[in-house]
């Protein structure tokens, strides 16, 4: 973990109107690490992620590979950061393969044909997510779990060194939650710097190399799951009484009742 961070942010402040949404966040993302950002609703997780992705203006310092995010062109930024927004939105009933190929958008010129690299990246993303079996189906006809995997495949096809995923497992059944988290972990262990927002503490504890906790605009904890997820912190941040168990697999929070 001594390598230079892919993404290095400090003193990040985001205001929407008069409201202070992100209040001085400091965060670094390293290659090979899956970081899960958790926190209660309205803590500012999505806003922080959008700021890190360069989609909304923010005060403070955000560096990508040692260069300021704001100094990158929109295209340079797109090649370095893949962003998977909430909700897995697909507006047109395009075939799955064409949707995944959109991940290659930052690599193509306006009128250029797909290269071998593009085709290879799309194929790899389809295979990794197990979506190649329905690659020709219109994306709007898929189930929630299938759509989530297509959305992730699209982000993976970017082959960007940084992957930011906003609630990639939301509204998925347990099996698909595990499938998606495994894919994110694999993307990290293949050398990506991955940040995912989640709500399931057990899932975060199981897969994250690192957990960052956000509460009311501030990052209040950052470290290994075992160090960060404590009964006291779950009580103070989430307002939930919990007990922590720990075994060979890792720490497991068991949530008992709202406080």
């Amino acid at each position, binding site marked *: 973990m001594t390598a230079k961070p892919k993404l290095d942010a400090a003193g990040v402040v985001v205001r929407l109107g008069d409201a202070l949404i992100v209040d001085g966040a400091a965060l670094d993302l390293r290659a090979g690490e899956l970081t899960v950002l958790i926190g209660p609703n309205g803590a500012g997780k999505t806003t922080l992620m*959008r700021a890190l*992705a*360069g*989609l909304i203006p923010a005060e403070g310092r955000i560096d990508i590979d040692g260069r300021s995010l704001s100094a990158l062109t*929109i*295209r340079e*930024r*797109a*090649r370095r*950061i*893949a*962003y*998977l*927004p909430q*909700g897995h*939105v*697909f*507006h*047109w*009933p*395009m*075939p799955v393969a*064409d*949707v995944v190929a*959109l*991940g290659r*958008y*930052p690599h*193509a010129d*306006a*009128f250029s044909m797909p290269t071998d690299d593009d085709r290879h990246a799309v194929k790899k993303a389809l295979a990794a997510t197990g979506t190649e079996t329905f690659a020709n189906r*219109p994306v709007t006809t898929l189930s929630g779990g299938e759509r989530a995997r297509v959305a992730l495949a*699209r982000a993976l096809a*970017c082959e960007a060194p940084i992957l930011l995923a906003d609630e990639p497992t939301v509204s998925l059944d347990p099996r698909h939650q595990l499938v998606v988290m495994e894919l994110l972990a694999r993307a990290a262990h293949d050398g990506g710097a991955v940040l995912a927002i989640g709500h399931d503490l057990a899932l975060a504890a199981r897969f994250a190399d690192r957990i960052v906790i956000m509460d009311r605009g501030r990052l209040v904890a950052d470290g290994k799951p075992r160090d960060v997820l404590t009964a006291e912190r779950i009580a103070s941040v989430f307002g939930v009484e919990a007990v922590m168990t720990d075994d060979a697999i890792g720490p497991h929070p068991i949530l008992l009742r709202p406080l």
Partner: protein
Amino acid sequence: MTRAESSGLRLNLTLALLIIVLAVISLMVGPAALSPREALVGLFGGDGAAAIIVRDIRLPRTLLAILIGATFGLAGAALQGLLRNPLAEPALFGAPQAASVGASFVIAYGLAGATSFAVPVAGIAGALVSIGGLVAIAGRRASLSVTLLAGLALASLAGAATALILNLAPTPYAALEIAFWLLGSLEDRSVDHLLIATPFFVASWLLLALNVQAFRALTLGEDAAASLGVDVGRTRLMVVIGVALGVGASVAVAGSIGFIGLVAPHLVRRAVGSDPARVCLPATLMGAVLLIAADIGVRLVPANPNATAVEIKLGVVTALIGVPFFLAMIFRERRLLDGAPS
């Protein structure tokens, strides 16, 4: 080539051929019917009556039908791509209506001749206000219901403003002239009309064509498209200006013609796998096919010889076909309109 690409190519070639065939028919049809041979001889040479009819009367009209139809087809496909919404269409956003306000103001008060650049410029200004207003109101989410409600409001406002100009017209003749012109027609359009409108059409196509790839990325929503390197704000601005240029110039030379932008993309969408980028070219060609066919149609339907107008108005025909089509589409999209965000 993928299946969608080869079927798209076949479709484009078929539509292009259809435009040529319809253009020849358009040169033949009118009060003095010509044979295909007479029409083509008149077009490429000769100096008899047929040559005058073909070159001075029917050719400008035919070319305008192609250009305006293509412009509306592309404008519809572009707005649908920008707003990720198959019901988007310039006429539903009050664009032709608002362009009519600008253009009829200029005409009613005799500020400029009907074939001066002032008319399209005023029309473009009107269209810019309505489409810009709509895209601003619809905002980032661009939900179906907000978009359509805002369009309805803008169209009503523009309609009222046009009515006001008619009410306050300096002479009843001016009012009547504007009222008929507003119904949309290509009758008696000259090369001058063609010349003042064409530069704006070309500018419109260029602005829209530059953003075709962005429409594809926008299928993932604005945030994801932005993260892929689309400058969403610039795309939105270019599409608004591009559509306004095309619609404003169309209205200035042909009055209000609606629903081509809704119908044309819909007819070709399935053949290109619903890809909002790949739909643009066939939608453009289909728009030209539809309008030139409609303009042949108005010349074949016998109008009352005692009436003021010699022909059925083109805008009336496109609305009579387009509105039921629109209602059918709403019927199919009911689930989306029932509150679910698009």
